[in-house]
């Protein structure tokens, strides 16, 4: 895997609290990497370390194969943080011009106009940012992140506080950045649905430890085949229910209101369940399969690590 971001056994203690307890993960070039975790898990600390705002106590961090303490490396990263750090008394154009000049760009007029156009902010580019809605601010923050055309984007909760239509716009911008502009995206979010929709790889951090890491689809499949519900025409004999319980691959959970609920293991197909039931003379009126969601994975993992 050609790594854009690589953390190896990174530890960080703030005050007396060990915020990161030796975390490791790799973000491949071109990934949209979702970084999940509850409040206080260590997400912000990780982002600050990625941006060179905090130093690691131990461990190794590479961004595009370089040390983050080098200013050349920081030029290869764009960021949108929470809070956004935009200057309220300046216009959108002035904010972007300022950052373009910080990154040493000289001919930035077209680049800025193009970004404002792509973010749908052209008609408000001369307005002060203080008059912008949260969604507009987030889009402007994303534009700022891309002003100097960096290879890696580090985005901290880019849709937090944004209304649903604004969230969709921001998501599309992130997807375009990754697919059309070839950026690697590191996205921290609380929004599991968002991460599931756009991230191809995820890591889940809790209490300073990575609890889950890998490709979103693989992880989801590894959690089992989701849920299978089968509606029957009548009651099921207890002997059959006992028999279903004895087959762990089926993951039989309950029979309620003439509906059987299963959480089958990987490799078990809905047709396997149906053929068993049909073979025992059960009349089936309907069957449905629901894939395991990231939300289920998330709650299952956090439940596992909760202290008893």
């Amino acid at each position, binding site marked *: 895997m050609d790594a854009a971001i690589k953390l190896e056994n990174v530890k960080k203690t703030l005050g007396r609290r060990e915020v990161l307890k030796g975390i490791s993960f790799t973000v491949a070039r071109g990934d949209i990497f979702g970084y999940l975790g509850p409040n206080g898990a260590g997400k912000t600390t990780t982002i600050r370390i990625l941006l060179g705002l905090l130093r690691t106590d131990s461990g190794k961090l590479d961004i595009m194969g370089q040390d983050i303490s080098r200013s050349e490396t920081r030029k290869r990263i764009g960021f949108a943080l929470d*809070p956004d*750090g935009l200057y309220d008394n300046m216009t959108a154009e002035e904010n972007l011009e300022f950052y373009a000049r910080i990154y040493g760009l000289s001919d930035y007029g077209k680049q800025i106009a193009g970004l404002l156009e792509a973010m749908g902010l052209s008609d408000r580019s001369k307005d002060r940012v203080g008059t912008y809605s949260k969604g507009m601010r987030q889009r402007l923050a994303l534009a700022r992140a891309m002003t100097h055309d960096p290879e890696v984007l580090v985005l901290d909760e880019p849709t937090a506080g944004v209304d649903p239509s604004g969230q969709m716009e921001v998501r599309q911008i992130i997807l375009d950045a990754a697919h059309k502009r070839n950026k690697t995206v590191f996205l921290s979010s609380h929004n599991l649905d968002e991460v599931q929709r756009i991230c191809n790889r995820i890591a889940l951090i809790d209490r300073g430890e990575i609890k889950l890491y890998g490709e979103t689809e693989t992880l989801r499949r590894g959690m089992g085949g989701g849920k299978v519900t089968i509606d029957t025409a009548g009651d099921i004999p207890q002997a059959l229910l006992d028999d279903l319980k004895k087959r762990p691959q089926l993951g039989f959970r309950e029979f309620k209101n003439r509906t059987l609920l299963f959480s089958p293991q990987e490799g078990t197909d809905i047709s396997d369940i149906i053929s068993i039931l049909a073979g025992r003379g059960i009349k089936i009126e309907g069957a449905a399969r629901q894939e395991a969601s990231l939300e289920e994975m998330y709650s299952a993992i956090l439940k596992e690590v909760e202290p008893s």
Partner: protein
Amino acid sequence: MRDIILIAATSMKNNLRLKIIIAVSIAVILLCVVALIVAFCILAVAPAMEAETIDVHALKVYLTVIVYSSCLIGLGVNMNVFAFQTMTREKSRGNMAALLATPLDVRRIWIAKSLAVYLPGLILGEMLALISLIAVNYVYFVPEVGFLFTPWMAVSGFLAAPLIYLGLSLLVHLIGLTGKPATGNVIVQVFLPVFASLMINLGVHNVLDAASWPFAVTNIGVALTIAVIGVMLRSRLTKERIVLSS
């Protein structure tokens, strides 16, 4: 240097758009300076001019103190208003973290932010010092004893007072950026009334000859002391401290 100018200019532009705050600050500064000049003229200059023998040296002392205090008020009130406000706002709204995540050097950001608050005060202070020098001369001295001016008056009023506040701006920003802006603000709030009244009294009561070198040298010494404290604390200035104190 290019980075420092860029950040300072942008910060000043951002600050100067806070029109109500600027209007109130200028009104307060003008009120203070006019009150100071009027009080000095009524209580010291006018009686000295009416004496049988005019003591020109005493007049130079009064004028130096007026010029020096006018500059100090311009610089001091400006810093009282903007240093705390700017640091608090920029830290809480993420402007500072965003700047630190760029390739910029943390010391350049510190210097630029200090200059952004200092420079408008410098311009205002120098203008007030110049206006008070000319006004008092033409209202009181020119008809009787001519235009009064000494090189030491220029050093105290136009150089030493600004140097003190340059050092103070760097020091207060260092403290405010790496800790709580309110701590820096307390220093600024206390410094102006305490230091200005101390120096005015030392000058007027001839403990330090305000029209000559002792007053100017003492002020430059104070500026140097503040600068040395700033240099000693410079190692505190790290991205980590700034970010964690935000």
